[in-house]
């Protein structure tokens, strides 16, 4: 399951739904929340449900961003079928709401004879309370990834800036809570879809912080996101040697091993394995090197 890129598609726009699967996003997110006016929620549910049945979303994982109010998301879950991989839960603030949603997803899986646990939950943290409860939320067994919603979060925190420096604590908190809860940390969207250079810089910063992917509001952002989150050839070479050395050490019963003069311990092996997994991802751009070689950590 890859999370490098997630393309948000308004659930009430037929033109955008039709093409959603052709761009190669790791996640296509059919949106029933903020991009859909309240008066059109019912119409969007019908359209999203029919599109899921009818359209081919290619290699993209298929997700639905449901509404945050349980009275609404009960209705939203009616669009899911076995082609879907999960839901994004906006304004997630507590483990209780995740547990409520998980129970409803279990019933949906049972009713449609879908393998239990297929539908994952990706909570979107958008408030101070949510940020404080991020570890509990990320620890739920259905939560495979977690992200944040910058607009609502900065408003709730009373922040006057939304740049990367101002958001450093919140973003790092998401990364730490996600990793501690065994979920993939995903960064928010980059709002200016015409600023490719700014997007690349933002994605590389996301990667530095520990995020595994970034959201997209426009298909033309996807190549840049994939480029930023793909491992470089030098990283891949390092990761391969680390994993090989660790395996050899384990086979020989040796406790400590070094690669390029640096100690290889379990966290280093884990990081190397993540790099190899990323390199195996469909669409990974391995012939490009988004990170200057001198910045590659060893």
């Amino acid at each position, binding site marked *: 399951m890859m999370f490098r890129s997630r393309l948000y598609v308004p659930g009430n726009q*037929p*033109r955008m739904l*039709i093409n959603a699967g052709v761009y190669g996003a790791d996640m296509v997110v059919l949106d029933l929340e903020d991009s859909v006016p309240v008066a059109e929620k*019912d*119409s969007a549910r*019908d*359209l999203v449900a*029919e*599109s899921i049945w*009818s359209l081919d979303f290619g290699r993209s994982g298929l997700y639905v961003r449901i509404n945050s109010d349980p009275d609404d998301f009960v209705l939203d879950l009616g669009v899911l079928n076995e082609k879907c991989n999960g839901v994004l839960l906006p304004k997630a603030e507590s483990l209780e709401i995740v547990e409520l949603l998980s129970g409803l997803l279990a019933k949906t899986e049972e009713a449609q004879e879908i393998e239990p646990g297929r539908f994952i939950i990706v909570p979107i943290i958008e408030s101070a309370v949510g940020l404080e409860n991020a570890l509990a939320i990320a620890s739920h067994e259905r939560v495979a990834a977690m992200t944040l919603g910058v607009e609502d979060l900065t408003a709730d925190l009373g922040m006057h800036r939304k740049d990367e420096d101002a958001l450093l604590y919140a973003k790092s908190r998401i990364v730490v809570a996600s990793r501690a809860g065994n979920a993939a940390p995903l960064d928010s969207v980059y709002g200016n879809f015409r600023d490719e250079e700014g997007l690349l810089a933002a994605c590389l910063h996301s990667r530095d912080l520990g995020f595994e992917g970034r959201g997209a509001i426009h298909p033309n952002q996807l190549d840049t996101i994939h480029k930023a989150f793909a491992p470089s050839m030098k990283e891949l070479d390092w990761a391969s040697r680390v994993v090989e050395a660790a395996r050899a050490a384990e086979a020989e019963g040796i406790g400590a091993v070094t690669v390029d003069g640096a100690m290889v311990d379990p966290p280093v092996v884990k990081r190397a394995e993540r790099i190899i997994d990323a390199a195996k991802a469909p669409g990974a751009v391995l012939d490009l090197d988004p990170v200057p070689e001198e910045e590659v950590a060893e």
Partner: protein
Amino acid sequence: MSVITVEAEAGTEGKDDVLVKVGPGDEGTGPRVDVQCKPLSRSSIERIVNDIVSSEGVTGGSITVVDKGALDFVLRARLRTALRRGGC
């Protein structure tokens, strides 16, 4: 069995979309259907409308379809929404 009890609509006249309008009408003979589209699309649209009307058990009212090049799934969705909004 159900009938359309109020005027309602779903969809838009935007490209790749379809506007479906429904309204009350005589019961028992099935809804009166008016399709505004390119000639080549008419039979396909009428078939989908009839399928949905049949599956929803709609026995009366009027349905107007203004197609702007919508794919089948869009028409099915807009029809379901309009009929539900119309009281079916």
